[in-house]
């Protein structure tokens, strides 16, 4: 059995339906565990006090905003090179979730900034490049919805996503390249951990929860997109949900 079989919407639709409950349940369990660690077990920060607990949703949201865009860029490449329809559908399915996480990263960052920096917003390199990421998500969704011909819309969207992907390393490295108000990376693979073990565990578990949630919701949305686009395809008539 070839994995390429699942690049066809007709094969991917039932597979996605089977995977959604697994990823959804995993996301829920991880979120419960992560929030318990973050809100009840992790100690108070010696400098920031209790307000630092925003980290348990701010950092996972920011990571997901960037990561989802990179996944979209990978699908954009597949859509342009191999002309796979499912890749374009996955891009469309991922964009709203990526946009939501980027908006949440900005919102929670602003609410964290006020008590710690004294301001909700500054035109800092990290924050400005994240705002540009939000505009890229909005721009992509506006573009694909503005063009009636789906093939042209997918191509234009894929190009925009690929060009915009240059912004992701800029966001990530902005705190190293420029002298910013935003703090440096809290987690590094090369340098030692700067956080208490329970803080780090809570944050990583919440990041995993957001990851599982994103997969579940994107799979759910791509099923809707497949039905919308393949409305008149013969295989759609055999789907169990529409027959019952």
């Amino acid at each position, binding site marked *: 059995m070839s994995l390429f079989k699942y690049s066809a919407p*007709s094969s991917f639709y039932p597979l996605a339906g089977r995977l959604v409950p697994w990823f959804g349940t995993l996301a829920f369990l991880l979120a419960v565990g992560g929030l318990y660690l973050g809100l009840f077990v992790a100690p108070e920060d010696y400098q920031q006090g209790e307000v630092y*607990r925003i980290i348990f949703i701010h950092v996972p949201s920011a990571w997901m905003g960037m990561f989802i865009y990179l996944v979209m860029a990978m699908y954009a490449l597949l859509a342009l090179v191999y002309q796979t329809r*499912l890749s374009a559908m996955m891009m469309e399915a991922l964009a709203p979730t990526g946009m939501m996480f980027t908006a*949440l990263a900005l919102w929670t960052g602003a609410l964290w900034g006020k008590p710690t920096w004294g301001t909700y917003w500054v035109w800092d390199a990290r924050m400005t490049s994240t705002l540009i990421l939000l505009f890229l998500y909005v721009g992509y969704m506006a573009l694909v919805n503005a063009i009636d011909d789906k093939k042209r819309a997918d191509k234009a969207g894929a190009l925009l996503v690929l060009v915009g992907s240059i912004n992701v390393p800029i966001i990530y490295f902005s705190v190293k390249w420029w002298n910013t108000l935003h703090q440096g990376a809290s987690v590094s693979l090369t340098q030692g951990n700067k956080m208490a073990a329970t803080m780090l565990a809570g944050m990583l578990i919440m990041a995993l929860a957001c990851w599982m949630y994103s997969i579940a919701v994107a799979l*759910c949305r791509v099923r809707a997109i497949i*039905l919308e686009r393949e409305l008149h395809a*013969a295989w759609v008539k055999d*789907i169990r*949900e529409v027959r019952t």
Partner: protein
Amino acid sequence: MDFFSMDGRGFYVWGSFGAFLAAIVIEIVLVRLRIHRAQKAVCDTLGSADPSGTENSDAGKGSK
């Protein structure tokens, strides 16, 4: 009460967690609505186009 006041920073902490939860709930509701609408559209198309179901001969064929 100390837990909810968060050292007097409750507005910032719960404002963040509340927005996070609200966004997740709204997204799940919107996705469920979208898939229900899509399934309804398929049902409507099936109902109006092929009540006998005789056009299903090539069902299951997918294309890349």
